[in-house]
């Protein structure tokens, strides 16, 4: 939890990008009905953990707000790398030297 300007408690959903439940709900009400659409609108899931912590919370909020079951929702897109990896290690993979 963190306090907003008025001192009211806010529930943090995405800790990496500091996105609150209120922000997520507002994005849904403005038409973002997928994990990806919410990410684009609020940055939830764009941080260091890439949604590994918050994605399930966001799906739960989506279910609650839209009245759907989790099976009906698309998950976010998983991409390389699975966890934060230094550029140096990626550059040590086989690559094109003349690139």
């Amino acid at each position, binding site marked *: 939890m963190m306090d907003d300007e008025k001192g009211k408690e806010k529930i943090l959903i995405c800790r990496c990008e500091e996105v609150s439940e209120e922000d997520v709900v507002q994005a849904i009400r403005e038409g973002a009905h997928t994990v990806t659409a919410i990410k684009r609108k609020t940055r939830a899931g764009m941080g260091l953990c890439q949604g590994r912590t918050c994605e399930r919370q966001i799906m739960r909020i989506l279910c609650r707000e839209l009245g759907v079951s989790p099976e009906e929702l698309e998950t976010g897109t998983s991409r*390389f790398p699975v966890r*934060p*990896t*230094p550029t140096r290690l*990626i*550059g040590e*993979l086989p*690559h094109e030297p003349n690139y």
Partner: protein
Amino acid sequence: MSRIIEECEIAIIGGGVIGLFVAYYLTKKGIDTVVIEKEDLCSGATGANDACLMAQSKKPGAKLDLAVESARQYQALADEINYDFEYSRKGSMIIFESEEDIETLRPFTKSQADAGLPVRFLDRKETFEIQPALSRHILASSYCSLDAEVNPFALLEGLSLAVLRQGGRLLRHKEVIGFEKDSDGMLSEIKMRDSALRAKTVVIAAGAHSRDVAALAGVDIPIYPRRGQILISEAISPLIGAYVMSAKAIASKHRAVSVKNAVQQQDGGKSKDSVQFGLGMIISQTVNGNMVLGVTHEFVGFDKGTTLKGLASVAKYTSTVIPALAQVNIIRSFGGLRPYSETGEYIIGPCDEVPNLILVTGHEGDGVAVAPACCLNVAQKIACGDWGRLFEAKNEYRSSAVPKRDIPIRVAD
């Protein structure tokens, strides 16, 4: 079975930066406009690029003029649409890594400066003053203070809200599957899976998919998907003083590539990889602090996935240019498909074969950078109905000038 649900003046196929800017300027004039997007807005090249607005990579002529005019429009746009899309004018730098680079690019820099671009050659000392993080092997650079970055997702969000406010309509998750023509050969109806739309004029702004959509109307255009792979890092404090491109990449950008030859070399596997991964290099940093490292140039059909080899090449080259990057954590990667135009020119204007079909595509990696000026021009021409000369420039960008070619749509799998 199709069922008429709506009618409009102008239907735009494609909800990327080009389609939305055309819609923005049309609805601003009060013209009844509908945007049709097969996925969500910003799902194609607009949502998968380096977010840089580069004038410095453009040759003097229409493309440079469009980029400069667009830069001017971007500066006023946030106020105009009342939406902050993280426009950040940091300037751009092209680095010269060899004497050969200097020799090749210096006349290019001068021609841009002569054309009025605020660009200048920097010696080694001046280069490191602006960009202390650069590797010491860099000899010199050219610097353009005009160039900037935007957040493409925020830009499209802001534009789409403006289009709706101005009375436009957005149809998301609607794929165009065909067209009906009337007896004069004009498009009369756009068919989607469960609905149809009647429009007086149809604009195709479908990026890398423009060729497929145009084919549904019986028109062939030489647009190929060219993939660019990009790495995104964790957010860090400001590392660069201007975003970085390499002279090698700029030189390669201006060499026209025959898609057939490029694909054959890719498939043949000999000189292959350097052709496959092309020469592109961009290092930028978002307002949020994430480093954006790119980019490959590959012809692999419509596969927008990433490859370890492509990403490794990007990681290696960019951390050679800025050694500190080696320590920075990468958190994400993605690939995007640019609408590569084989003629090297944008394909903009009405078709001779189908007069009420207008093409706005072929921007390859330039879409976000030239969209405002390009699309304002297109919207004005649509509004007055007289195409005449499209841009006040030497180059003519007319689809009718494009020769028909016998090249398969899918160039590789």
